[in-house]
């Protein structure tokens, strides 16, 4: 279980108020934050869009199911899904173990970004 306190969020990433992170790049990688992974508990099932699907910033694009609950995955960006992390789909525990690394979820060819937060702003959001 990654146990980064919000003050130690990776500063090179951008965040959403819905607890996704976005790494700059072409395509851009997205995942959920350690804060979200921690709150969900052990993740047992991921429902993700298929490669080639178009996604819209701020809308639900998937589901993350843990032993205790179900949470929706919102896309931080508008664009086309370029890659899906099939290793995480097969072994969702990767998202708990390494949410900013091996537990990434999607790579998206971005046409437009939604509202994004810096690590500092996201930390303030989650501590509030």
């Amino acid at each position, binding site marked *: 279980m990654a146990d980064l306190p919000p003050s130690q969020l990776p500063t090179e990433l951008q965040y959403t108020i819905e607890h996704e992170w976005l790494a700059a790049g072409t395509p851009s990688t997205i995942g959920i934050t350690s804060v979200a992974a921690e709150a969900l*508990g*052990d993740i047992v099932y991921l429902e993700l869009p298929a490669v080639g699907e178009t996604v819209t910033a701020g809308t639900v694009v998937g589901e993350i199911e843990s032993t205790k609950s179900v949470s929706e995955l919102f896309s931080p960006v508008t664009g086309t899904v370029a890659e899906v992390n099939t290793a995480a789909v097969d072994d969702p525990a990767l998202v708990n173990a390494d949410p900013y690394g091996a537990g990434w979820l999607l790579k998206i060819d971005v046409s437009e970004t939604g509202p994004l937060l810096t690590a500092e702003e996201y930390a303030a959001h989650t501590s509030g």
Partner: protein
Amino acid sequence: MTRTSPLHDEHVALGAALTDFAGWQMPLRYGSDVAEHTAVRSAAGLFDLSHMGELEVTGPGAGDALDRALVGNLSGLATGRARYTMICQEDGGVLDDLVVYRLAEERYLVVANASNVEVVRTALTERFAGRTDVRLDDRSLATALVAVQGPAAEAIVVGLVADQDQAAAVRALRYYASVPATVVGVDALVARTGYTGEDGFELFVAAADAPAVWRAAAQAGQPLGLVPAGLSARDSLRLEAGMPLYGNELDTTTTPHDAGLGRVVKLDKVDDEGAPLPFVGRAALEARAHAVPARTLVGLVGLGRRAARHGYDVVTPGGAVVGTVTSGAPSPTLGHPVAMAYVTPEVSAPGTELAVDVRGRHEPVRVSTLPFYRRER
């Protein structure tokens, strides 16, 4: 008002994720809920259940008063034994499910769910009104409850009892029995009861003594694989074991019979003259015992990966709604989703193929008997 357990500092020190539960701040999990669940099945888990309610019923009329207030036969309980029972309304609806311990000839301990302590206390107070031969004392806040559950539980708990005769008595305890013992130097009621489907013990101690008992059990159990376990593991364990949860499988609109627990209703209870004992809910439950059920509690085994959850519709392959899920989760022990649900009798046979509407998609399930998991004895 949020209450904290006498073990709150222990939970914080262990880094627990805390959650509000029935007005108490209690540990949801300490790390991985699946790892805590697995530890209870393979070794042992340490649980804080201090939020549960403890009501002491004493006096020469205690047994008779409980027989009239509850659906079970408590005056027939041997001293040192415990019984799973329920307190119902006049219409047969369940106010709470309880474990009642007979501690002495004229002394009983009624353990109620945290969310229902006031309901149970109020109902018992009303039902005991006018009687001078019975007394009710709420010991909930003065009492802490620590559970050690799992195949290693006996070795751990026996090891905490210094006196050899008491240790032998704890080792010899039968399931649903209790014995007083000195545990790490403090007075405890040691009961062989639990809510996980495993062998295990529940230790009732004074609130101030709870941290010492908790720490000693944690230390003694660690080499045997014991880990602290939170409410999340408790819920998945009890679901696998097919045990009802008040608010999910049981509530005031549900009779014991609906939940498949009609056996706890003792219609053969009689008074001193041999006449049927008029316990609260008797007429309604007698009628219910002979009626065709409108719905019945079943197990559902998920054939896909998505878990059914509380409140989801159960549907036929054709899409007709035939029931409601009461509890559901992925089963860490079995590796597939499981759920309990109320369904209409015609689709309740084990093996019946149904589906659950999981957020708009019909996920296939198969009706099964309960429990999903039964330990080897």
